[in-house]
């Protein structure tokens, strides 16, 4: 991902919200931008990495990325970090003190809420951080606004020496819209000034600065009142007036084009006078916000009557079709029934699956064969091990939690679980993000855990970003490569308890796990194979099923590979009198990349390499 020539100023580009934020960060003269990948925010830094003249990095976690940005700001440089909602939980320790030091060079944090949980373990409303940390929150409603508000955020940050939160949601990050772009500004850092009262947060210093935080918040309320980001649109149909922030504004305009709206782009602190002015011109006030009833509670506390979550859902995305019946309810009308043609058809679910040749398949196929184990899991593609056909993962909480949860189960279990073995699964990127501390805690506290460290040489779930163990930086250039086995040893795991295995070699994998779980000491099995979606993966010769040899046992289906398909099913009565259903299979050799995982459980040897002459040849390279 080498730097490319950015599109010239005044270009009108189709950009996602993430790309629009990246463009604005670059134009704002930012010198340092850091992030850990996380849906839906990943593409912000990915996109920024293609711009010249700034340092971009994959940090090992969100807390570190925020600290890097803060350090850059201390020198007077403009700095930026981006994260998904749960990333800000990790970074919050920094955030809650950074609000006291304040920013020197413009400092902006983009936080993306996965409203509707498209790829997250929970749903959170990051606007709370604005209240908790007393920081301003900006909420764009589309790509153009994401671009403009990010630039506004840098100016605001420098003028009031405050870090600024730009709150995005999935429907901002991943929606593409037209954006007119500009030039990059130059911002030479003014220089680091030694100032312990400001930068050394000991109690005495923090105590003197905290009143300034509250004062700043009051000042910003006034700024918000006058800000062009907060617009009162008087409308003509004044039965219901709307307060809307973020993408909710677009839904309101779509569904109720003639209604009065207070559009909050600068949503914390929100402007009380504009709010009262809206309330004065409409019969009822309805607050449209994703996801918590935050503005609603505050507006009511300010003595302004309003509605919100009494008629609207408290979780998930809003849309015009959610708003219309809610407003009907508010107006005492019976909501119009949905047209029968608009009812969804019943179709099987299609959950995400592991890819053909995914090394994780070998792991979960094996874990599914081992009885009497408790498997704690973590965040990544390998969370899919909880699904069919493996059902081989018992817990998933948050980044790195596998280690602590496993130790807790070990120490907390009573007689009923005494004979169970505990396996903690974690990916390489998650291990470096927040798993290393947990492993240290296991060794220090003498836990009896077998850790499966799945080293696929990338951050897989977010699309294959480099990590400190992949030997590449964000630009794909060579970087120091951390040796995971040495890290594990340094964290206190005995050398003889560290095993490196190939997850495609099922017998060895099975034997290694069986041996390690029997030993009463922490052990780490590093299962090493590259993710199939990264350049390091080289496909092998695909396989086919020799039809006459297939006995329909279905063993290969239990591997969970999406390239294996059932061609026919047949019910037979076994000599024991038991009826079983046979499933005869074939392999889609366009999808098969020849890992051989399915070959190993095939008893009749029906799975063979595709003859060389039949390997599909691509005539036109596109």
């Amino acid at each position: 991902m080498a730097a490319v020539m950015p599109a010239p100023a005044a270009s009108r580009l189709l950009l996602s919200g993430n790309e629009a934020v990246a463009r604005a960060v670059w134009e704002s003269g930012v010198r340092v931008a850091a992030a850990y990948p996380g849906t839906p925010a990943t593409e912000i830094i990915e996109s920024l990495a293609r711009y010249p003249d700034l340092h971009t990095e994959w940090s090992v976690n969100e807390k570190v990325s925020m600290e890097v940005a803060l350090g850059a700001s201390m020198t007077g440089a403009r700095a930026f970090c981006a994260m998904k909602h749960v990333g800000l939980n990790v970074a919050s320790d920094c955030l809650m003190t950074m609000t006291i030091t304040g920013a020197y060079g413009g400092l902006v944090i983009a936080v993306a809420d996965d409203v509707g949980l498209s790829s997250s373990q929970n749903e959170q409303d990051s606007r709370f951080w604005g209240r908790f940390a007393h920081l301003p929150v900006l909420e764009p409603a589309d790509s153009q606004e994401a671009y403009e508000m990010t630039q506004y955020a840098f100016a605001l940050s420098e003028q009031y020496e405050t870090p600024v939160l730009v709150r995005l949601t999935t429907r901002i990050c991943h929606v593409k819209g037209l954006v007119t772009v500009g030039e990059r500004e130059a911002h030479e850092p003014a220089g680091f000034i030694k100032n312990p009262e400001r930068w050394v947060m000991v109690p005495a210093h923090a105590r003197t600065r905290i009143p300034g935080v509250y004062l700043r918040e009051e000042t910003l309320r006034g700024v918000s009142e006058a800000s062009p980001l907060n617009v009162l649109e008087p409308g003509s149909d004044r039965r219901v007036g709307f307060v809307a922030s973020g993408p909710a504004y677009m839904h309101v305009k779509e569904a109720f084009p003639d209604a009065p709206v207070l559009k909050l782009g600068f949503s914390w602190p929100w402007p009380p006078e504009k709010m009262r002015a809206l309330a004065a011109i409409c019969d009822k006030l309805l607050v449209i916000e994703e996801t918590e009833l935050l503005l609603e509670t505050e507006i009511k506390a300010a003595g302004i009557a309003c509605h919100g979550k009494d008629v609207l859902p408290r979780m998930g995305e809003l849309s015009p079709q959610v708003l219309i019946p809610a407003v009907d309810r508010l107006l005492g009308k019976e909501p119009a029934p949905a047209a029968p043609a608009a009812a969804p058809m019943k179709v099987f679910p299609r959950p995400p699956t592991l890819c053909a040749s995914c090394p994780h398949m070998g792991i979960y196929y094996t874990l599914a064969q081992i009885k009497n184990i408790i498997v704690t899991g973590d965040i990544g593609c390998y969370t899919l091990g909880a699904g069919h056909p493996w059902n081989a993962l018992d817990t998933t909480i948050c980044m790195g939690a596998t280690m602590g949860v496993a130790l807790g189960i070990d120490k907390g279990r009573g007689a009923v679980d005494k004979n169970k073995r505990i396996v903690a699964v974690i990916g390489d990127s998650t291990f470096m993000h927040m798993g290393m501390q947990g492993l240290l805690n296991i060794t220090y506290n003498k836990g009896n855990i077998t850790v499966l460290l799945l080293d696929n040489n990338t951050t897989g779930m977010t699309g294959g970003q480099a990590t400190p163990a992949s030997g590449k930086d964000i630009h794909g250039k060579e970087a120091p490569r951390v040796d995971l086995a040495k890290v594990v040893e340094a964290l206190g795991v005995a050398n003889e308890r560290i095993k490196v295995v190939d997850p495609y070699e099922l017998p060895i994998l099975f034997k290694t796990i069986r041996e390690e779980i029997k030993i009463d000491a922490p052990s780490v099995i590093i299962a090493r194979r590259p993710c199939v979606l990264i350049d390091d993966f080289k496909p092998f010769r695909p396989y086919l099923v020799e039809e006459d040899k297939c006995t329909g046992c279905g063993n290969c289906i239990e591997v969970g590979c999406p390239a294996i398909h059932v061609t026919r099913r047949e019910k037979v009565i076994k000599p024991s009198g038991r009826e079983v259903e046979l499933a005869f299979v074939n392999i889609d050799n366009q999808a098969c990349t020849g890992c051989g995982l399915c070959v190993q459980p095939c008893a009749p040897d029906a799975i063979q390499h595709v003859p060389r002459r039949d390997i599909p040849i691509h005539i036109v390279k596109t």
Partner: protein
Amino acid sequence: MSHNDITNILVCGIGGQGVMTATEILAEAAIAEGHDVKKTEVAGMAQRGGVVTSHLRFGRKVLSPQIAPGTVQVLLGFEGAEALRWSHYLRPDGLALVNNARLVPPVVELGLFDYPEDPTGQMRTAGRRVVSFDAMSIALELGEVRLGNTVMLGAIADYLPFAPDVLLACIVNRFARKGENVVDANRRAFAAGREAVAKQLGAGVTDPTSEPAPA
């Protein structure tokens, strides 16, 4: 809703099929015609074989990026069961253009769920206007499976509120740097996609009296 000039196109399929790229090219064509455009999808876990939908809305001014059920003019389905899954997004006079691909997920192979016998037939029974064709075979006949996406774009080209050449120009532009052979192959794939649909609409597969939507 007062934005009657908005065209809603829903493209659906499975992670890895090229749904998002196809929609991106459709968006470029709409921009070239001077429309305001919004395009949205939820991508997160899509590349793991999950369901992918891409919403494309264009017109004078697009507000909400999400298409409401019952308002899609053209549904471009990369896979049969996925087209069926999203068919309630079509408005009553909407048109579904569906690739006959049958991509069966592991949960079906494991016997946990059934794949519909005839997804496009089911759509027709429900009163939908459907044209189905085998984009993969068409692409393979042209010598390259990856031309399937251009076949799909060819299929929709005559059912957009602008000339097919606008869309073709965007495809050509995208492949220009890959050389003349690739561009020519894509031109042929585009033409083949158009023909596949025209042939069937002419043959009365769907109600021949209804107008193609949108005008």
